[in-house]
């Protein structure tokens, strides 16, 4: 090795700037390099979310709780929708909890690039950080709302077994990955087409009714119930109920189907985002 002597200081890096064409790698090592920024974005979102609100973080609890009350009255009491033998309030709340996390993450993710347009146009950082932080930033709200569920479980005397509890992190991961996948697709599209802004409320509403939040998936017969797992949120919601309340049932095949669907959403979303991001500074 007789490389010419250079005066490069150790650790000093050379950046190569070249055209990007077609599909490119996800650049996850660079995202990792900027992990502090990821943390600061999440921190900023949480910090700002409840500034100048009277009730502050209580909103994280109030929203699902009030929705649960409304659902219990209309779907549980009046419409008498079956709930797999569990009291309807806790049945719907256990579904609403992951659902709210998913829907908020999706909405925030979809708006993330447009909201941070000023940054995107003026500073370089791995763009993936923006939607990732927007989706992950919903976790604290989720954990707060989770406390209510714990209270309700004690009240109704429904306790999980240690083994079934193991499924819970997997369900959360599934919700996170699905939310992120859709959020990545929508945020990249939103940069160019502001139609997305108007699509998102409809999408989340329709998706909720396509997910067993207010009703159990046991209303469906096989094989439709397993195929229902193509919507990953079905497995998330059912998995939550099964692992926490010990009620309902999980179909492993349905779960596998959901995991594959979610992974496809996530990967395709990430690659699509990477393909679109080079034009963000022009169009956003």
């Amino acid at each position: 090795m007789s490389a010419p002597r250079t005066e490069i200081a150790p650790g000093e890096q050379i950046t190569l700037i070249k055209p990007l064409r077609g599909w490119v790698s996800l650049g996850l090592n660079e995202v990792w390099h900027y992990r502090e920024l990821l943390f600061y974005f999440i921190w900023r979102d949480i910090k700002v979310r409840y500034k100048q609100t009277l009730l502050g973080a209580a909103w994280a609890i109030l929203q699902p709780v009030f929705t649960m009350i409304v659902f219990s009255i209309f779907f549980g009491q009046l419409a008498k929708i079956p709930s797999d033998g569990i009291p309807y309030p806790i049945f719907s709340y256990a579904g609403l909890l992951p659902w709210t996390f998913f829907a908020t993450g999706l909405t925030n993710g979809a708006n993330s690039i447009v909201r941070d347009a000023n940054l995107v146009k003026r500073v370089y950082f791995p763009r993936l950080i923006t939607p990732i932080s927007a989706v992950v930033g919903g976790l604290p709200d989720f954990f707060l709302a989770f406390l209510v569920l714990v209270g309700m479980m004690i009240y109704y005397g429904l306790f999980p077994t240690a083994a079934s509890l193991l499924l819970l992190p997997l369900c959360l991961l599934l919700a996170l990955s699905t939310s992120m996948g859709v959020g990545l697709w929508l945020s990249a599209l939103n940069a160019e087409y502001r139609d997305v802004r108007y699509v998102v409320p409809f999408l989340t509403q329709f998706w909720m009714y396509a997910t067993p939040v207010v009703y159990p998936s046991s209303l469906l017969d096989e094989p439709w119930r397993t195929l229902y797992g193509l919507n990953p949120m079905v497995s998330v919601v059912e998995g939550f109920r099964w692992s926490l309340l010990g009620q309902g049932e999980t179909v492993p095949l349905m779960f596998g189907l959901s995991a594959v669907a979610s992974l496809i959403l996530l990967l395709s979303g990430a690659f699509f985002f990477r393909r679109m991001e080079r034009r963000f500074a022009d169009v956003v």
Partner: protein
Amino acid sequence: MALPALRPGMAIEVVGLGKQYRIGGIIDRNKTLRDSIGSLTRSKLGALRARQPREARARRPDNTFWALRDVSFGVERGEVLGVIGRNGAGKSTLLKVLTRIMPPDEGHARIRGRIGSLLEVGTGFHGELTGRENIYLNGAILGMHRYEIDRKYDEIVEFAGVARFIDTPVKRYSSGMYLRLAFSVAAHLEPEILLVDEVLAVGDAEFQKKCLGKMGDVAGEGRTVLFVSHNMDAVRQLCQSALWLESGSIQALGPVEDVIKAYLADTTLNRTADIFPVMDRHYGIGIADLRLTMDASPVSGALDLRVELDVHADAALPRIGIGFGLMTDTGARVVHLDERLTGFMFDMQPGSNHFLLECSALDRLLAAGDYVVSVWLAMPNIGNLVEIDRAATIHIPGVDFYGSGHYVDVHKHGPLLFPLQIRRVEPAHSVE
């Protein structure tokens, strides 16, 4: 494809860089899906109808233009390179490509070390967060690690002079405090390479002066700087060499004096290519034409400058300022008359608006030499909309102003015919 390594001693190497814009992508900031579907259908229809008129087929390539094309240059470590050129010449695009805000479409560039730019001042500040929180957030956005910010935190606060309000949300800051804090964070980033775009720099004159001062510091420390500016004095002061961009390509590159001189000599009305109309697309207003004449007044024989200005407005626009500036052919400012100073503001009618700018007896005011005229349109509180920043060069002939047999020359004596009188007085007169 293996690229040759960055030569030692070089901080930036740019080879054949090109950046293409789609015009539609720039104008339609709020494009919707419907527009895209519409244009898709139109192009499909165009393909179906093979005998489409020529102009319709020719329009496709017109939808894109090269903001940068075939740009190659190198910057040595510790060099301060000025980047000059008229508006829209590609200066800002060059900086955006070098800071990786957008990728190029051709060529490549290699950069050694961390790049920072003062065009990011205040980017990412959030009104609801306190000064302290914003320092950390902004530092992270600019690529600083937490330990670096920790180390420089006290210095940043002190430089900004906001210690007392550091735990107050910045939305309660005065605009001056806000800018000082934002600038202080950016100034403490200490990148190996600093990119500065004076055009995009925010703030008032005093703040910009501070930026220039900081830049001088940086250059003094042997750091590499790329300085984009319209201010020839500043470029000359700070840079050893300069790069002149014209319509996305390098027009000249070399020692700062030579490049500035060539740049200033190349005025709008000397060139054959018709640049008019120069429009601000957002407000739909622009300069449709500009004609300059210098004539001896029939009465006094003094030289009068007349500028006929045609302004085109898409719709009625109230209170548009017309500005006029003059500098010497080496770029020193003689006058810079903005609408705030002069109050020359007019309500624009839709369509054509004609104006006549007159400066009488210029040769009784200015020293002999060449001067460069600039004209611009501005909107109060918004800023300049369009600018013809070197419309033409005018020549002022020599005048033996002091009656000494010598002409007053702009380069030797300054631009003014200054009414200095010196005479002897007797002591008795002055004591009285």
